[in-house]
């Protein structure tokens, strides 16, 4: 076969796809199912994938599609909103006071992100947390790159508005 073995794809991307789905579903149990389903689907289509395809973007597109189906059920959507919880971050604020402020801000941002319309939330997470190109985000969301860019812009605007009146951590406090 011209393509590399599928095992290497799992090894390279599973953790990242899991992280993405955990973020957008807010429930690790669902991320477990959805990430497994993403790779099972990918495996089924692996042989007919073009050899020069961007595998990472392709996996994100499958995962995004599954996440969107998942959210079509309104009850799940509500559960996701309720699932906002404390999460550990790899960003270390400098002082205890800054740490508190950073924490508060992050909780606020999380709440806004989790409450965003689905396409904006997915676009935001793909761009800001996974650094996907707008072309790839567009493919994931089945929209144009300009729309993908607009979704991210709208998300940032809403987050910014959600932080109105809130004292933000100083730039020096975040690495």
């Amino acid at each position, binding site marked *: *076969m*011209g*393509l590399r073995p*599928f095992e290497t794809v*799992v090894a390279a991307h*599973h*953790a990242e796809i*899991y*992280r993405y789905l*955990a*973020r957008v579903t807010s429930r*690790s149990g669902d*991320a*477990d199912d959805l*990430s*497994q389903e993403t*790779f*099972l689907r990918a*495996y*089924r*289509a692996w*042989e*007919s*994938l073009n*050899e020069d395809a961007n595998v990472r973007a392709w996996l994100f597109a499958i995962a995004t599609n599954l996440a969107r189906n998942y959210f079509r059920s309104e009850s799940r959507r509500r559960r996701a909103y309720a699932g906002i919880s404390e*999460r*550990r*971050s*790899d*960003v270390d604020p400098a002082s205890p006071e800054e740490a508190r402020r*950073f924490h508060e*801000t*992050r909780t606020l*941002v*999380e709440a806004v*992100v989790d409450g965003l319309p689905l396409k904006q939330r997915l676009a*935001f997470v793909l*761009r*800001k*947390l996974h650094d996907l190109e707008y072309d790839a985000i567009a493919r994931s969301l089945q929209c144009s790159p300009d729309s993908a*860019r607009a979704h*991210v*812009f709208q998300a*940032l*605007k809403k*987050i*910014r508005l959600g*932080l109105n009146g809130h004292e*933000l*951590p*100083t*730039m020096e406090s*975040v690495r």
Partner: protein
Amino acid sequence: MTTTKHPSCRAIELDLVATATGDVESRSTDLVQRHLATCEPCREEFDRYRAVDHVARGLRTAPSAEAVASSRAGLESRLADLRQRRVAYRIFPSPLGQILIGRSEHGIALVEYLGTGTSLRASRLGRVEGVEAVAGGPELERLERDLLDYIQGRRRDLDWSLDWRLASSDFARTVLEATAAIPYGAVASYAGVARRIGRPSAVRAVAQALRWNPLPIVVPCHRVIGTSGRLTGYAGNQLGLKQRLLTTEGVKLRPAQRDFSIARDAMYALGEGETQYCLPTCGDMGTRSLARVTLFASRADAESRGLTPCTDCRPDLNPLVSAA
């Protein structure tokens, strides 16, 4: 808020957010910087967006390593199961009608005549329980080319690794393996195959096993005929395909009452347990039961299997005129 903003601030807003959050092309960066130099509220806005971006990137949380590892383990186990059941298939037209080939990770698992059908739904593969049929890629295209070359006589062997799991029983598999050993350009009888597998009385069972051959062409059940010399049956009721495959291999046939008969007098013969092949006229060779004789279309076919010419009838000195 937005409504109270100056038009020039509104016009620059998208670029401002993009620049502050690191999403930008150089042309808009310059525009934004020039605007910021003169607009205090937008400078504040810019700083807030920068902070928002930093906090947002701080959301790159790592789920616990255990959760990821446990999910990965679950995935590996489901993949292993899927891999076992997966058959990549391809459907393509051939001179013998539409053909489906299916390959698992063990090898070719299925070759199927679809007649005029062109979809998986029309196939046996679509009905095998537990099989996960997926559309094949370039590898299957290569196999298609090989098979078409074979069917049209441009190549004489396929040299494919085979997955026998779709054989209906251990007995069937034994029959199929014995059939796979019948060389190109040769024919043996159902009774002959039964003798080869040590079950001389199981002639009907052999015919049944070949009737359900999951790998026609590749496991050449078309080279198995009745002891009368008639072709008797193939792929349901498609003797025409059998006739065509045998003719391509150089086997001489004659029409015989809605069937075809092997032209035994135009083929070389090999007696059971012997290593020398003969002319059909050698001794009692012409009247021996086909249960104990294998026929060859050409000397080359016989000799490619390590057989030597009979030292009595000397087929090497007196080759059949009608055979190559």
